[in-house]
């Protein structure tokens, strides 16, 4: 065991300043009465501040008082080496016993204990054994015990139980004192102020301070004369720069850190503090989604939206997968709902209060609602493009009606509103109606042109779907209302009521209405008087039976459309036959053409006479009974003529449904 103490390192040579006063005092006390006061004494300091000096001085001091004292000075490496040697030699117990017999153990560089668990355990045994036997332990380290990595807690507690003291860097005065003492010891004769200039360099390491002194001494020897203060500063500039640029050693912090400290802060305190603060920040940030969601709930529920989805997020204790995504999705849904509500307000105000518009979880339902509303708002069917006003044949008998129709087409809403055309079936009232409709449509108006039967059917469908307001809105979108065969509304009170409402709406807004009836108003029963009087308030015109001239012109036009050459007598013959309607007249033309085709001959006056004389009355009778034009305009623009499926009259079941309901 190396017990040698450095002979020159005694208290007498130790310059005491403010930074090391506490350590020096403690060391003196220990040196004077080892084992009596601070046991163990733990001294820590940056390298070059005199730890080893103090250890050695304690040894000398105690030996001076008690020369018989067993004193050992060794570095930790020595301690480890000796231990290993003892273990290898199988003398571990003897090794431990030797320490327990020591009066003073001076152990240097104990920072080397870091992460050496085995040696820590061994040292712990030694410390315990010496404390039992009353021996003094003094340890020195370049860092406080708490900073020695993985130092056994029990050792930490043992050290803390004695005195942990640090040696601060020398202040200016101390540095001057050290330099003066060393200069004296070496017999250097320096100009006044030179040592002070050197001391101005904040060297916190006494060895470096002595290095500066050596440098001055060498420079003076080289110059052969004492250096001036300026020369000294220049000589030391390199050292000063080095000190300045070193990211470093500190007077203040080293002094501040240990000057009053028995026990240095626990090793992980700084990190734990950091961890705790970060944890609270992280928690705030992570949990801040709750306040964001709560704010959103308040906001949206305040605007009348259902916030069940967001509330579920809050109720669910765990952090949701993506709270911000959920909020964004909710906001998107709300804005979609708002857009839908806005659109719906325009197309179907009655639906704007639907609950789906307030529930972001039912956006699809709301969209479907809007879709349905939009479908319902397609304007009612337009007039059939096959019938044009220009195709109307005007004769003295129908002139009033035809001219009235033309006037209405030219000035919708202002001349005759409504225009009611009364005619027996087949006399062209549907033609006139659709003709007016097409003329109005050509003028850019939205024309609703339907048969009364379809009007009733659509209303029934709307009632079934609980969509009457939309049905109404759809009709109201039209600029002109044209209804064929209004006499079919007889006894259909709900339909009449709706027509009444529509009538008022159209009339008030100056929109044109044209109606046809197969039954003269005077004979029409089952019709609300309020409607009848309104019909009469416009212009009621009759389309009479076609006269001979008209019949002939119809036949002429039809034949010339079918045949390259028309027998000039033929239209006359057909026109001379009595017909109850245009359609009957056309039926006559058709029969002649069919007969000609059957016989393989060209239609001629002779053939016509032959055909018509045999069957003139049969063809006409069919058209007597029906009270409607029997023409249903199809959506495709085609016409379903009653004449072609004469006996498939659909009106009866329609009536039944209406009455049944």
């Amino acid at each position, binding site marked *: 065991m190396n017990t040698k103490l450095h002979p020159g390192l005694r208290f007498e040579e130790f310059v005491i300043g403010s930074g090391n006063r506490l350590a020096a005092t403690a060391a003196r006390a220990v040196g004077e009465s080892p084992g009596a006061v601070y046991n163990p004494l733990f001294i820590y300091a940056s390298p070059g501040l005199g730890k080893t000096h103090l250890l050695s001085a304690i040894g000398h001091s105690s030996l001076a008082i008690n020369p018989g004292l067993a004193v050992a000075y060794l570095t930790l490496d020595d301690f480890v080496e000796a231990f290993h040697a003892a273990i290898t030699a199988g003398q571990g117990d003897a090794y431990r016993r030797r320490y327990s017999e020591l009066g003073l153990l001076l152990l240097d560089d104990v920072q080397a204990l870091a992460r050496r668990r085995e040696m820590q355990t061994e040292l712990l045994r030694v410390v315990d054994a010496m404390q039992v036997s009353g021996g003094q332990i003094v340890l020195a380290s370049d860092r406080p015990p708490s*900073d020695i*990595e*993985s130092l056994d807690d029990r050792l930490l507690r043992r050290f803390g139980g004695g005195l942990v003291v640090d040696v601060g860097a020398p202040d200016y005065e101390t540095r001057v004192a050290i330099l003066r003492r060393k200069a004296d010891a070496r017999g250097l004769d320096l100009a006044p102020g030179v040592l002070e200039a050197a001391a101005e360099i*904040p060297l916190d390491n006494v060895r470096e301070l002595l290095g500066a002194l050596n440098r001055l001494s060498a420079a003076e020897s080289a110059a052969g004369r004492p250096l001036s203060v300026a020369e000294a500063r220049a000589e030391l500039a390199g050292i000063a720069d080095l000190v*300045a*640029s070193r*990211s*470093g*050693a*500190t*007077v*203040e*912090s*080293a002094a501040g*850190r240990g000057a009053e400290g028995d026990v240095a802060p626990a*090793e*992980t305190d*700084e*990190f734990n*503090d*950091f*961890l705790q*603060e*970060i*944890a609270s*920040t*992280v*928690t*705030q*940030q*992570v*949990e*801040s989604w709750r306040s964001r969601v709560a704010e959103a709930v308040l906001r949206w529920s305040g605007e009348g939206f259902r916030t069940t989805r967001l509330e579920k997020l809050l109720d669910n204790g*765990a*952090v*949701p*997968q*993506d*709270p*911000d995504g959920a909020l964004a999705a909710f906001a998107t849904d709300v804005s979609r709902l708002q857009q839908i509500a806005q659109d719906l307000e325009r197309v179907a105000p009655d639906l704007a209060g639907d609950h789906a518009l307030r529930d972001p979880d039912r956006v699809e339902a709301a969209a479907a609602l809007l879709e349905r509303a939009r479908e319902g708002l397609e304007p009612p069917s337009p007039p059939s493009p096959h019938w044009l006003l220009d195709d109307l044949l005007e004769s003295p008998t129908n002139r009033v009606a035809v001219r009235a129709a033309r006037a209405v087409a030219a000035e919708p809403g202002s001349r005759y509103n409504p225009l009611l055309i009364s005619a027996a079936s087949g006399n062209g009232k549907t033609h006139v109606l659709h003709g007016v409709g097409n003329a109005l449509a050509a003028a850019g108006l939205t024309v609703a042109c339907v048969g009364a039967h379809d009007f009733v059917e659509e209303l029934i469908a709307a009632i079934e779907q609980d969509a009457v307001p939309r049905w109404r809105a759809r009709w109201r979108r039209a600029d002109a209302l044209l209804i064929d065969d209004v006499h079919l509304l007889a006894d259909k009170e709900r339909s009449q009521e709706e027509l009444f409402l529509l009538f008022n709406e159209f009339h008030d807004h100056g929109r044109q209405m044209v109606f046809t009836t197969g039954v003269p108003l005077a004979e029409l029963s089952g019709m609300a008087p309020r409607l009848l009087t309104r019909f009469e308030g416009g212009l009621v015109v009759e389309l009479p039976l076609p006269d001979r001239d008209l019949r002939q012109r119809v036949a002429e036009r039809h034949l010339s459309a079918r045949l390259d050459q028309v027998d000039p007598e033929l239209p006359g013959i057909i026109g001379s036959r009595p017909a109850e309607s245009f359609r009957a007249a056309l039926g006559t033309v058709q029969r002649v053409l069919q007969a000609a085709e059957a016989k393989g001959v060209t239609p001629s006056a002779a053939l016509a006479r032959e055909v018509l004389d045999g069957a003139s009355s049969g063809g006409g009778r069919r058209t007597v009974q029906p009270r409607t034009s029997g023409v249903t305009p199809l959506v495709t623009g085609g016409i379903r003529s009653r004449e072609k499926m004469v006996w498939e009259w659909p009106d009866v079941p329609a009536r039944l449904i209406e009455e049944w309901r």
Partner: protein
Amino acid sequence: MSLVNFTTREITCKIVYYGPGRSGKTTNLQYIFGRVPESRRGRMVSLATHGDRTLFFDFLPLDLGSISGFTTRFQLYTVPGQSYYNATRKLVLQGADGVVFVADSQARRFDDNIESLQNLQENLLEQGVDVRQLPVVLQYNKQDLPSDLVLSSDALDEALNFRAVQSFGADALHGSGVFETLKGISESVLRRLAAGAPA
């Protein structure tokens, strides 16, 4: 870089220590390394030249464990301060969530600080990052040196801190100000999440 990942329950912060050569960036990391329990830290990767200068970069991963159910990791990087390692600096700067600018408080290093700060802005701009949008704190290191050698924190604030970010006086070698700086940048990075940065 995704800071808070609600799906994987992870929070990852990349913090880069930036500053002129020898301002004490690596010292900051070393101090932190020394204070973090082994279980919490990864291996500190440090590539240094003979003169202990950072040649490439230092990397210190910190595992802060589970906070509010989120695995929280900090990755601390330093850049090499010397001007000729700009390519490395750019590389390290990529995807940084926050920057600690470590200024050398010594009066004679004043220009180096300015130059490095400008270099930081340029490099960020090159990566499409507006320095005003990125959490940055300043650390005035070496405040322990004698007052005639260093500029005070106030003077340095005046000169460098024109964006009025948080600043900390420090003595990285002995640790004063080191964790304060780390706390400062960490909190401003974490707070930025709430300010609406996409998660």
